[in-house]
Structures are given as structure tokens and as C-alpha cells.
């Protein structure tokens, strides 16, 4: 059952397209991973799905076309985008950031959401009154993911969560993401440069090169192809 179905998606920033006729699927409760080098168009993919950049093509979320909707309406439908750079509300407190994550639900089940999120990220509970901009890189990434979880989404878009973080923190983060995916039955579309760790999570892998999909299949397909494995996994 397809949660997210992207067909023939093209997008760009004005002078020519960055994405060319891309097709992506995320199954309900599944994890799809997009790998590729810098500039391959991975971030643009997520932005295009959310309507943050001009796009053409078809995006179906839970069978519903969203390619003409503005970003905030797509968010309200249950797509939580954890952007590149984390997108933290730096001048607001941790708890206010989380509160904003739950914006589309108002006060509905707010306390339960806080409780659940603090269970996944105990460190954030300790820092709940702290100004979000003063959190460490790892904590801000946790906050960004936690904010997404607060919205009780059907689909989470994750843009390079490992960026700039120490390996131990990255492992912790990915453990939590796997946990969230399993327990909340939330679909995940994950974009990463760090292929190795992402691959363990994936049930479907896409490889992007210069804005096009050059591989589409289960993780074993990438691991099985020797030259791709060398390039993207380093062994």
C-alpha cells in the first residue's frame, strides 16, 4: 500500500531543473532511502514534495494529489519534513518548538504527545525550558525529529540527519528513528549522504545522480553491485 507516490517529478530553482522526471515510492510504514552525492538533488526532492520549490509532476500522498498544494497545507495533511539544517526555532524554547510541532492538532492530546516524545528523547526533557538555539548540534537534530513526531504524522521526510554529527550520536539518532518507524507505524523518506547507516534502515533504496534515479530497489541490490558498492559504501 503506497503512502507516498511520486511520478515524473521535475523541479528547479529558476535556471534549469535540478530534478528530472523522478519517481519515488514510500510504502505505508515503510522506509525509503535516497542516496547520492552532493548536488544530486536529494534535498530538492524533499522540498519539491513539500511544495517549497517550483515543481511539475505528480505527488500522491495517501492516494491524494498534493502537487498543487502550498507547504503548510501539505504539512497539515500529515507530512512532517525535518529539513536540511534542522529548521529549529532558535529563539524559542525547546518545549515551544515541540508545541509548534503539534500545531495542526491544537490542544488535542498535547500532553500525551509531549510524554511520548520525551520518552524517545529524554535529553530534550532535561532541556525543555532552554532556548533551542543554544542546544548542541545533536540535540537540535533530536529536537527537529521530535517536532516532527509531535505532529503525529503519517509520513516523515528526513533530510541528512547525520550531517555534522559525531558517529555515536548518529547511531543513537538512527536507533530512535527505527523505533519511531516501528512503534508509530510512520512512513519515512530518508535522504542521506552517509549510505552505510541509512541502508540498515531501508526497505527500498533509490540512488540519485545529477537529478535522476539510477537505481531503484531493495538494499541488497546496492550491496550486490560492486562498483556502486565501492562508490557509495566504500568497500
Amino acid at each position, binding site marked *: 500500500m503506497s503512502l507516498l507516490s511520486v511520478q515524473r517529478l521535475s523541479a*528547479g530553482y529558476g*535556471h*534549469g*531543473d535540478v530534478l528530472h522526471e523522478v519517481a519515488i515510492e514510500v510504502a505505508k510504514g515503510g522506509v525509503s532511502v535516497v542516496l547520492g552525492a552532493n548536488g544530486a538533488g536529494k534535498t530538492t526532492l524533499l522540498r519539491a514534495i513539500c511544495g517549497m520549490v517550483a515543481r511539475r509532476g505528480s505527488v500522491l500522498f495517501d492516494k491524494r494529489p498534493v502537487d498543487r498544494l502550498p507547504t503548510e497545507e501539505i504539512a497539515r495533511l500529515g507530512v512532517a519534513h525535518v529539513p536540511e539544517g534542522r529548521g529549529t526555532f532558535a529563539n524559542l524554547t525547546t518545549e515551544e518548538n515541540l508545541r509548534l510541532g503539534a500545531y495542526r492538532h491544537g490542544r488535542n492530546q498535547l500532553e500525551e504527545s509531549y510524554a511520548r516524545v520525551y520518552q524517545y528523547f529524554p535529553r530534550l526533557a532535561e532541556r525543555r525550558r532552554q532556548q533551542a538555539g543554544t542546544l548542541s548540534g545533536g540535540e537540535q537534530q533530536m529536537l527537529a525529529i521530535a517536532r516532527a513526531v509531535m505532529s503525529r504524522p503519517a509520513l516523515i521526510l528526513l533530510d541528512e540527519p547525520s550531517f555534522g554529527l559525531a558517529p555515536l550520536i548518529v547511531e543513537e539518532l538512527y536507533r530512535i528513528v527505527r523505533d519511531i518507524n516501528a512503534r508509530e507505524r510512520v512512513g519515512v523518506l530518508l535522504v542521506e549522504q552517509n549510505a552505510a547507516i541509512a541502508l540498515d534502515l531501508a526497505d527500498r533504496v533509490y540512488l540519485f545522480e545529477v537529478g535522476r534515479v539510477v537505481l531503484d530497489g531493495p538494499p541488497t541490490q546496492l550491496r550486490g553491485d560492486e562498483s556502486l558498492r565501492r562508490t557509495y559504501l566504500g568497500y
Partner: protein
Amino acid sequence: MRTRAVGVAAVVAVSALGLFGSSYHLFQLTLVVIYAIALLGLNLLTGYGGQISLGHGAFYGIGAYTLAVLVHRTSVPYWLAIPAAGALCGVVGFLFGLPAVRLGGLHLALATFALGVVFPQVLKSRGLEALTGGVQGIALEKIEAPLHLPLSPDQWIYCVCLATAVALFAVAHNLMRGHTGRAIVAIRDNAVAASSMGVDTAMYKSLTFGLSAFYTGVAGALGALAVQFVGPDSFAVFVSISFLVGVVVGGLASISGAIYGALFIQFVPDLADSVSKAAPSAVYGVVLVLSIYLMPRGVAGSLRSIVTQPKEGP
């Protein structure tokens, strides 16, 4: 290059035709030329230099008053007084610029706005009354054409303004295309990068202020001669705002923009007046807002984008 030279010659030729117009039209054209010089000055600071000024009316006024005082109270001839007024303004502008360069956008806007607001007050103040003529101002006499040339005083002053404009525009054009201009624009676009490449940003910014004030001061001096009067209320903050309007509507960072802007600020208020006697300013305001919607980068900017072909993507 040749097309540009031909274009400039054409503009000058058309302008010369103004000599044959009625006295009233000639006066209006004279003001357009004068405003063009003033706007060019402001454009150097704001368009090329990226520093906002809501107080250039003060430099215009300093130029005007300097000329008036020199001509009226001393025996300095007007043709010496004009560059003298410009020079004085340049120095004042440079000195103002020295501390002002430490202020960013909004703060500079406030500081220059304060300058524009305060200037008429200072002119009216008791202490300077002997020099400035206080609220009454100073009246000047008409300038006769020299050497018994067959030109009326109005035509002569128009020629003086036109010649000054051509000279100053040429200087500005060369300056902006050369080393100085590139430094000024580099500072506007990325001051940190410019400074790390060895450009003395503070000095250049102050120099830009001085240069800008010089141009506007010369315009003010010419304005005093054309209008034959200087008074504190002629240099209220409205003048400063008009100049900013002219520079933006004409087109920032553009030499030709100064001309379009001058045409705008001279003729549109009159047009607004003829459309509505009751609320001419309202019409002016509406025209202003619509101009920005239609031409966000000013007249010069819009012309530029019509002329350049947009590049096709791969």
C-alpha cells in the same frame, strides 16, 4: 561603445531643443537636469554603494545655501561658487560619513533622516540668522549670459546646468566603471569579502558619502541659481524623501536611472495635481505604489531586463 556615445549625443541634442521652449517649460527642464545631478549623487551612495540616505535634501540645501551666501554676501562669482558649494558639501558629507559608516541599514536611515529633519530647524535657528537670513531666506538675482551671447537668463542657466550635468555624468560613468566603482560595489555586495581583499571599506564608504554629497551639493547650488531663492522651508525632509523616491523609481545603480527619476519627481506630482485637486498627494502615492508593482527595479531596471535576453536552461 559607439552606440552608447551616439545615445548620449542624442540625449544631449534633444535636451538642447529645450532651449526653444517657453520660459515655463524651460524652467521645468532646468529643474529636471538639476534633480538628475542630485539623484546621480544619491545613486552613487545608495545604488552603487548600498548605503541608504533619507537626508540628502540636507546636502542639497547646504549646496544651495553656500552658493547663496557666497554670491549674495561676498563678491565670489557664481561660476566659482558652484564648485565651491559642491566642495563644501563633499567635505561635510565625508565628515558625516566617517561615523555613519559604522551604522547599518536601519540605523543609517534614522541618522540620515534625522539630518534631513533637523536641517531646516538649524537654518531657522537664531544663532545662524545673520548668515542664512533665518525664516526669510535669501533672494538671488538672475544670472546674465556672458560675452553678450544671444541667450536669455533662463536659457543661459539651462545651458550651465546641462553642461555641468554632462560633465558630472561623464565623470560618474568613468568612475563607476573603473577601480573605484568596482571597490564601491564590492563593498555593497559583500563588505567582509571586500575588506579581506584589501579594500579599506570604512574609507571608501566615507569617500562615497563625500562624493555623493558633492554631486547633490552642486545640484543644490544650481537649484539656488535657477529658483533665485533659498529658504528653510524649501529644504524640508520632503525633499530628501523625493530624492529617494526618484532614485528607486528611476533605477538603482544606474547612471541613466537618475534621468528617469528626475523626470518622475518633477512631473508626476504636477500630473497628480491635475488629476485631483482635492487629494493630489493621494494620487501621487498611488502612482508611486503602482510604479513599484510594475517596475520593481525602477525604470532603468525594467528597461535592462527587456533588453537582455533571458538565458535558456539546459
